[in-house]
């Protein structure tokens, strides 16, 4: 099978082109030794089945950033039959250097100058024939967004890949990559003779928007309002969709699966329905939120506003060892940790990504909110409850800040903060939709097995041995709760609450349901009994522990997928457990010592 590598500078529309070529057939490939996800797709190219690989965006083939190293590693360890370089027509005067560097590798190469629509608007004309002659590689102009010149480019790729030409082995490329080449002068010569650019090219609209959106005083409030509205949009639209998914699953269970399994032995019935099926349900519940989140995120990202947000917030984030882009993800984590973690892919430095991923699971997501609303309604008056909820938000922010400050040395990155501000663009609906869809498939592929196994395990823990009531103190979970008593007693967390915490490992949404099973009561009766059982100090301690101790299983699965490191995932869980214990301990013992 032939292999085609797609390569280009950041912000050149490379991924848009990739999505256009691959449609929705893209998969996340596994490449030995590479720590980021590379999307690839099987495509038909001039009678060959070819594998198209989307390499990370890079400025310089010899650069030192993580992405640049990934590209070098890829090219020097995997044979490639054709390189397609994507550059931005409007910035060709400085981007051509990359094409010259790639040309040195001696592989069949096609140069695509993207964003022909923007170049036309800006009055930039490029003499493609002359450029192609001087570069000695075919050059074509396209608009990946609108499809202009796209078919021609595909035909050219097919022609190039069919040529029985020389073959350069990865080893030779590794050697070539060592050499530095003097490209600067050649680039200027080619640009001078082939590109006509207006002397000053100012996008008036972008300038005017920037004057408002990046304003010294109004910029931040506008950003916060915009984020708040997007957040509201995601969750007001997402919640009914999540409920609808839950309803559909319930209908499926009641009308199809229950009758089907009516004669099955009880353990099989329990395993399949309460274990596997609930696991599938847990995964499915995330789908609407992830789709919506990435619809919104790709709008924010492709429009050029994400880089602006980074500009506005970088001063604050730099103190935490992060950069401006991390803030957007942290904020999104307050809705749902899973897509926020997936969103950290916009960061180029691995260390900065890991630090951001360590911080995000501490944000008070909407699922944890459900537990807190129930607990505060049970243990506090209507007047106290909002104060308690607000203080939990503060604790969440504080624990994120503390974590970043503690570990910023460990995840130190010397990544200089230099970002390009692209002009504002309207993303096309197709662009947005493909992005949302690909992200969901990615989540489902990677997370589902992990989550189903986790749910089955918790089901088994709370249902075995089978001769005792489910979720009671005699089950395995109850015994674990008993074993953990020396750890949890100093926090005021009793055996029943400990079992609820074990359920909470799967998803915070089921904690309240678990309490109902554990106490054998529901609704008001459950609240009444719990209010008799617990005082507010215990309840608060339980909430603090729930807030920090571990994100849900979906988040854990995402942590592992995105970091590609089980060690990092375990470290993240370990740290949040430790922090949760300390916070609850200090609170509980402190409150008791003060006489509450």
């Amino acid at each position: 099978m032939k292999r085609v590598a797609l390569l280009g500078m950041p912000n050149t529309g490379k991924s848009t082109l990739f999505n256009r070529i691959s449609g929705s057939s893209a998969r996340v490939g596994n490449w030995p030794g590479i720590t980021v996800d590379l999307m690839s797709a099987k495509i038909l190219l001039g009678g060959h089945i070819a594998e198209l690989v989307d390499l990370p965006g890079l400025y310089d083939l010899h650069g030192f950033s993580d992405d640049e190293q990934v590209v070098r590693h890829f090219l020097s360890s995997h044979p490639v039959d054709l390189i397609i370089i994507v550059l931005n027509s409007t910035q060709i005067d400085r981007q051509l250097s990359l094409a010259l560097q790639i040309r040195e590798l001696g592989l069949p190469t096609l140069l695509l100058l993207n964003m022909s629509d923007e170049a036309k608007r800006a009055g930039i004309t490029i003499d493609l024939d002359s450029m192609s002659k001087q570069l000695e590689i075919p050059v074509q102009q396209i608009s990946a967004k609108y499809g202009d010149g796209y078919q021609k480019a595909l035909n050219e790729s097919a022609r190039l890949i069919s040529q029985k030409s020389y073959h350069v082995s990865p080893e030779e490329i590794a050697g070539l990559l060592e050499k530095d080449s003097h490209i600067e002068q050649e680039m200027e010569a080619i640009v001078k003779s082939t590109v006509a650019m207006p002397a000053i090219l100012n996008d008036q609209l972008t300038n005017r928007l920037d004057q408002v959106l990046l304003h010294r005083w109004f910029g931040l409030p506008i950003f916060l309002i915009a984020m708040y509205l997007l957040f509201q949009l995601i969750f007001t639209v997402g919640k009914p969709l999540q409920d609808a998914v839950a309803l559909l699953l319930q209908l499926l269970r009641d009308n199809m699966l229950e009758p089907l399994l009516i004669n099955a032995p009880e353990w099989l019935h329990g395993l399949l329905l309460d274990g596997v099926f609930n696991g599938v349900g847990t995964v499915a519940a995330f789908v609407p939120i992830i789709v919506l989140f990435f619809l919104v995120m790709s709008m924010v990202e492709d429009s050029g506003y994400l880089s602006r947000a980074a500009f506005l917030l970088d001063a604050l984030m730099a103190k935490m060892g992060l950069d401006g882009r991390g803030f957007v993800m942290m904020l999104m984590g307050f809705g749902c940790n899973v897509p926020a973690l997936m969103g950290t892919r916009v960061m180029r430095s691995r260390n900065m990504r890991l630090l951001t991923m360590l911080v995000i699971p501490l944000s008070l997501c909407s699922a944890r909110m459900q537990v807190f609303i129930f607990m505060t309604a049970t243990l506090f008056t209507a007047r106290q409850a909002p104060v308690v909820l607000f203080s939990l938000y503060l604790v969440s922010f504080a624990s994120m800040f503390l974590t970043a400050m503690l570990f910023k040395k460990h995840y130190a990155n010397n990544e200089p903060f230099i970002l390009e501000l692209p002009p504002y663009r309207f993303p096309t609906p197709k662009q947005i939709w493909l992005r949302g869809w690909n992200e969901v498939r990615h989540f489902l592929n990677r997370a589902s097995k992990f989550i189903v196994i986790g749910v089955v395990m918790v089901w088994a823990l709370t249902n075995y041995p089978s001769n005792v009531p489910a979720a009671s103190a005699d089950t395995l979970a109850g015994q674990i709760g008993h074993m953990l008593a020396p750890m949890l007693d100093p926090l005021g967390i009793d055996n029943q609450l400990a079992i609820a915490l074990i359920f909470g490992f799967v998803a915070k949404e089921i904690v309240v349901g678990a309490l109902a099973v554990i106490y054998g009561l529901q609704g008001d009766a459950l609240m009444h009994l719990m209010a008799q059982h617990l005082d507010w100090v215990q309840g608060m301690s339980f909430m603090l522990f729930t807030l920090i101790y571990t994100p849900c299983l979906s988040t854990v699965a995402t942590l592992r997928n995105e970091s590609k490191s089980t060690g990092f995932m375990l470290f993240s869980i370990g740290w949040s457990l430790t922090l949760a214990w300390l916070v609850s301990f200090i609170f509980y013992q402190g409150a008791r010592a003060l006489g509450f």
Partner: protein
Amino acid sequence: MCVLPSLLFYAIIKNYYHLAYQFMTLTNLNPGEQGTIQAIHADESLHQRLSALGFRAGKKIELIRKASFNGPMHVRIGTTDIILRLTEASRIQLANPN
């Protein structure tokens, strides 16, 4: 008691320390002002990154705006808008205007 003098001292140092280096950098521009890049004082990796984004000796550079709280700067080189932190901006030496 010594808060005020030390604040004053800090302000002076902050505004005039570049004179000790005898050259003007990107951080000395005010929003709306232009300069010409004379040299880039950076290690190889940062140098490459900057030059890939269009920071080269002889190029004209304009400071568009600065973010509040000592945040990054927004500059324009030719057709490209770039944001960068002050630490990186201080590595970019500009030709003296006269």
